[in-house]
């Protein structure tokens, strides 16, 4: 069930340059079904900003009825969000969409988790759940620069973790794809910039792979047709999937990215 809930902010922390970790109290955690789902946040009560902001759930705790998001302070909405303090309330719509299917990785197998920038957060809950299930995870996290790196420690505790930075200021210099070529794995879960997802899909087309897409959204629930992408095998060109309600996670090869 999708709820519209007024959630109290439990904590808000700056964890890297312009990167914030925000935890809220929310009954909707009971409805989260998979890692990789997202919520749609109304920042402020006014008309400025008007639209909600889609942010992934990076981890959640059903007993505590809390979930955590990690976001980059960027434009108007996220800047306002970053100015909010514990105790303040947020109007959140969620949980939304379909996340990463953990049952596609079998016990004993190795799953490769590939995250780029603000695509990293939803992989954290995924890593936790896969590990708990008995799937080995290898995490490859790409960032622009050292100042943008976050959650390396958290991921390390769950499995082998590689960090790459585009400018080489931290970890391995280069892109996540440079790191992956030397690794052994059975399936891939990824979230990050579209060029990264496209590269993965091309280079590992033989692997079972799940990709989380991003698209500008209106409603977030499937009603406005803002966030569509085309299906791969479609003769008419008119069939589509909606990132918000059919995704954001798709099996590689399902939609054109």
């Amino acid at each position, binding site marked *: 069930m999708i709820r519209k809930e007024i959630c109290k902010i439990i904590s808000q922390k700056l964890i890297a340059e312009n990167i914030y970790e925000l935890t809220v109290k929310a009954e909707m955690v009971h409805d989260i079904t998979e890692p990789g789902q997202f919520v749609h946040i109304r920042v402020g009560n006014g008309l400025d900003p*008007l639209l909600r902001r889609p942010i992934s759930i990076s981890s959640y705790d059903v007993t505590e009825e809390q979930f955590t998001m990690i976001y980059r302070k960027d434009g108007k909405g996220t800047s306002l969000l970053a100015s909010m303090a514990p105790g303040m309330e947020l109007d959140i719509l969620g949980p939304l969409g379909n996340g990463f299917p953990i049952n596609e990785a079998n016990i004993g197998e190795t799953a490769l988790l590939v995250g780029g920038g603000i695509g990293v957060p939803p992989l954290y809950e995924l890593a936790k759940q896969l590990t708990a299930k008995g799937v080995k995870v290898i995490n490859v996290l790409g960032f622009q620069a050292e100042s943008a790196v976050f959650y390396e420690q958290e991921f390390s505790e769950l499995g082998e973790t590689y960090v790459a930075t585009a400018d080489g200021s931290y970890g391995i210099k280069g892109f996540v794809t440079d790191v992956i070529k030397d690794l052994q794995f059975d399936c891939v879960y990824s979230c990050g910039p579209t060029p990264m997802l496209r590269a993965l899909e091309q280079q590992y087309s033989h692997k079972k792979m799940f990709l989380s897409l991003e698209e*500008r959204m209106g*409603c977030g629930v499937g009603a406005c047709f803002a966030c569509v992408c085309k299906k791969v095998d479609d003769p008419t060109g008119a069939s*589509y999937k909606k990132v918000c*309600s059919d995704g954001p996670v798709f099996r590689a090869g399902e939609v054109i990215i």
Partner: protein
Amino acid sequence: MSRLHVELPGLSLKNPIMPASGCFGFGREYSQFFDLSNLGAIMIKATTAEPRFGNPTPRVAETSAGMLNAIGLQNPGLEKVVSEELPWLSQYDVPIIANVAGSLEEDYVKVAQEISKAPNVHALELNISCPNVKTGGIAFGTIPEVAKQLTRRVKEVSEVPVYVKLSPNVTNIVEMAKAVEDGGADGITMINTLVGMRLNLKTGKPILANRTGGLSGPAVKPVAIRMVYEVSQVVNIPIIGMGGIESAEDVIEFFYAGASAVAVGTANFVNPFVCPEIIEQLPVLLNQLGFEHISECTGRSWK
């Protein structure tokens, strides 16, 4: 709640609140949030003869107190709407207003003829004002004679009353309204979106793949109110008003301007419960303002 009951050509409305076309899909998504039978009516997404994918993404961009969209009339096409969406909607006790779009007159006529036969379609909304499609369209919404002719052709084939949806992107909205009234329209819906644009600060290029898009939301409300005010004084057919409605107060403002019912678009994205919430608040507001029935509000600004 008879204080909100409104009778319009073809439409017997429990209340005058309906989601605007394109902002509610075919109702499935919002049926997760509330019982669609609570609504006065539903204006479904524009339907064209053939399925359409619409424009490339990004298709939406935010603006101050508004948003731009360039969906481009994406829809599953007449056949699927008639065979799947409308039958699904028939489980609810709510009249459907089918938004009809096309590129050529023939397209409109075909869709209107077919879709008006569906049992739960109680009226058509002729979309002559979509700013987001390249071919055709624009002339229908901006040249009075062309709009009149199209209205007449559609009226000839439609089995239900026909409302024509006007574009605000014209010099003289009154002229357009009179033309469609002359063409036999049973009602007018207004306004569609204003053509607008946003550019990306970093790249310099338009944020929308389609470059321009339609502006909706609270930002456009004063323009919509003005146009409803102007048109309602010169036509003898009812107006379903829309443009930036977010609250019961906004609804009353449209009624004062001259509307007999209203549609809520963009606000559904901000608050999926906005329609039922407005419906609940309206009687309270009528009490505060001292009205027995909402229809008393219609046209008070000029009556």
